[in-house]
């Protein structure tokens, strides 16, 4: 069965199945969402208006047995940044979409009346239903309610109250194999889904399976790929401590933004470290190692139980723990887990929201370290849409503007995550130049040498640093376009069998003959496509800048400042 584009028009409530255009066929994940957004969305449109489109796409290998391939991408014009946006997540939806032959789901238009809907996807197409019962509910109630109505085998994409209220930090939540949720976070795609008046999307693939053109070659390549992933020492660290293993390291480097980016080390870092979290999880009978989707062999996720040993939350990542922890000076993992759970339920981004709290603390709205008040504001203000709740729910920039705070760590209005760019300059270049606002995942480490984008300038010169950062972003865009979990990148960096095995799997799945150069070119073209969209939306080189305070306020303990000139940053796009 050939893959199809599933299209839904929410203005006239029509649906269609379309053939996949030839030039979209080689894309998956971010490559496909960004290609579709660039082709079909007017760059100057209002992100919450009828002309924006919300696109979901599985990875190229989703639905197959390929390790770590079950990531789903969502794309749109972001209401937080105004730029093009792609976000990806684990959960069960990518596999369901791929198995039902959905190359991409495109949702366009906007209902004229004040009625809420849900979508139901099967291999036969899309049905649009009106929805009353679950409106106003959080994600956990939605998952429970939809499973009761349908089956616990289906995939579910949903929004919580934040998405319904179109807050700029709202997520789209993705049901995971345990009927908890993962998040398509950053950039406010939940608000776009809310603007289309869709509360949830149910995905029922039935018994459908993905076709593999050359099953033997696929199996052999998957074996090599999986071995490279499992054997890599970074995978071992991720599987034991999750990405939160980074707290101690980044704190030691003086790059752990603390108290709204006023320091680079947090006194309470040991209380929130990956090491401590691991021990607490084990002590309470949780799971320190857990996959966000079936088929993940690294398993950086975890199940965190409360003091009584009952489930509290899962999949807490370093960046979320940093944001609710060091940035707000909260040194209690149980309080952080409680907040993580609430934010998952409301369906709002943990990084953006917690950085917004840090700015609010700076502005005197609540004291630094007051996690009880943070929890109250999340449950009683954000979830209910009070004025304060909406100010915070619209992100760190919104809080800064409202309370006259000048130390507002955002780029293109998106909160800077867990690595201080004064102490770790290479990440600062990514924050400044990313096509999607400050985002640490845009320049993740990956096999620049294997992809032939190792760079030629003196690596210690600023020119060399910009070149390396550019190449990392190209390589990352390439991996993102396969739709694989980005954590495969570490093995791909060090193990020369890993990336070729990934390419072999794609070739065996589709009966094509991609090579590394094709993958690199894909990365270049995705980055250029996204940049061109942003320029057409009105962004200029002056938007590729870090906030002024990074240049003027040295960050202790090393007292470094950000010292890249605008001209140096602008050279990023000379390719």
């Amino acid at each position: 069965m050939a893959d199809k584009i599933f299209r839904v028009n929410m203005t006239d409530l029509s649906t269609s199945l379309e053939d996949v255009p030839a030039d979209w066929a080689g894309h998956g994940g971010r490559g496909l969402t960004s290609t579709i957004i660039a082709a079909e969305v007017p760059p100057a449109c209002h992100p919450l208006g009828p002309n924006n489109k919300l696109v979901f796409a599985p990875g190229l290998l989703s639905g197959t047995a390929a390790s770590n391939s079950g990531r789903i991408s969502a794309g749109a014009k972001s209401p937080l940044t105004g730029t093009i946006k792609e976000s990806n997540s684990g959960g069960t939806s990518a596999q369901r979409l791929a198995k039902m032959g959905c190359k991409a789901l495109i949702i366009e238009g906007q209902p004229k009346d004040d009625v809420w809907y849900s979508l139901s996807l099967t291999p036969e197409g899309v049905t649009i239903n009106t929805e009353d019962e679950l409106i106003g509910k959080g994600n956990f109630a939605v998952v429970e309610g939809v499973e009761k109505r349908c089956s616990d085998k289906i995939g579910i994409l949903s929004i919580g109250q934040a998405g319904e209220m179109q807050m700029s930090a709202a997520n789209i939540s993705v049901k995971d194999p345990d009927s908890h949720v993962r998040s398509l976070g950053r950039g406010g795609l939940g608000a776009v889904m809310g603007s289309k008046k869709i509360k949830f999307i149910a995905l029922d693939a039935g018994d459908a399976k993905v076709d593999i053109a050359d099953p033997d070659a696929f199996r052999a390549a998957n074996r090599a790929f999986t071995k490279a992933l499992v054997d890599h020492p970074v995978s071992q660290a991720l599987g034991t401590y999750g990405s939160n293993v980074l707290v101690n390291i980044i704190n030691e480097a003086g790059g752990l933004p603390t108290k709204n980016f006023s320091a680079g080390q947090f006194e309470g870092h040991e209380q929130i470290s990956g090491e401590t979290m691991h021990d607490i999880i084990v002590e309470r009978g949780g799971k320190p190692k857990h996959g966000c989707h079936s088929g993940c062999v690294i398993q950086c996720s975890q199940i965190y139980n409360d003091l009584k040993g009952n489930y509290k939350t899962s999949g807490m990542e370093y960046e979320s723990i940093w944001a609710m922890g060091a940035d707000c000076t909260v040194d209690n993992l149980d309080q952080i887990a409680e907040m993580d759970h609430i934010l998952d339920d409301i369906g709002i981004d943990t990084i953006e929201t917690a950085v917004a709290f840090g700015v609010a603390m700076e502005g005197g709205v609540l004291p630094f370290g007051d996690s009880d008040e943070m929890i109250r504001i999340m449950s009683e203000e954000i979830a209910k849409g009070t004025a304060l709740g909406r100010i915070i729910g619209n992100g760190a920039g919104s809080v800064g503007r409202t309370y006259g705070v000048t130390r507002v760590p955002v780029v293109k209005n998106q909160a800077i995550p867990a690595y201080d760019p004064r102490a770790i300059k290479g990440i600062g270049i990514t924050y400044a130049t990313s096509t999607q606002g400050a985002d640490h995942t845009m320049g993740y480490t990956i096999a620049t040498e294997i992809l032939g984008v190792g760079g030629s300038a003196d690596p210690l010169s600023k020119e060399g640093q910009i070149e390396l950062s550019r190449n990392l972003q190209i390589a990352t865009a390439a991996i993102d376009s396969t739709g694989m979990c980005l954590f495969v990148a570490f093995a791909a960096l060090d193990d020369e069998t890993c990336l070729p095995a990934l390419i072999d799997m794609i070739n065996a799945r589709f009966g094509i003959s991609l090579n590394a150069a094709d993958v690199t070119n894909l990365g270049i073209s995705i980055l250029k496509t996204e940049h061109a969209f942003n320029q057409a939306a009105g962004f200029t080189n002056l938007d590729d800048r870090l906030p002024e305070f990074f240049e003027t306020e040295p960050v202790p303990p090393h007292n470094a400042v950000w010292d890249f000139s605008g001209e140096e940053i602008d050279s990023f796009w000379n390719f």
Partner: protein
Amino acid sequence: MNRKEVSHNEIPPIPGAADLLLTTTPGSPGAFSSLLQGGFFFHTRRGITLNEMLCSLPGFDQDYINGRIQTIFIDGLPADHLNQTLIGTSAVIAISAAMPGLAGAIFRKNGVHASLRTSQESMQTISRNNDTDTPLLIQLKLFNIIAEEKSEQILRTGCTLSGSSLGKFFNYRLPLLTHIENCMFNGKKTSMEQLRPLLQTTEFIHLSLQEGS
């Protein structure tokens, strides 16, 4: 010593450190391994290399040091070379396995992404006094897999911790107290309730763990 031989050296206490012997329930010393993320203290000679210092620790051998230790910080600055000489009168050293993310790659020793570090010239470094004969005080922090693999042996052998850091550890890991069967502080049997306030006022404590039967 044969370079591959596992060292069983003891780590000498910091002079003046109080003595603490904790007897744990069977099988539980490993539960204390993250204690050493806060570091333990010992004196060594100035001019020793990083490699020599690590080789002198209980349970560390050259293969382990070369293979497992992929991220090293000295006074908060990433280090690339094990033959780096340790100078001055004190140093805070942190060691870790290979770490994820771009930041992890940037800080990895001799990593290809090291050029993306903030240059050390633009950072304020600790001024070093190399003129005296005083020994070098090391605070060594063991992170992640290194802590999991090596802390237990070090804790059984005995190592010196700061009293406040041990006190803080027991505050946020209260359930661990149920794993402590017996506590001897400076040779006297002491309850954990009595011990905890003492920790806050004791600069250094030489802690040894032993497993009960």
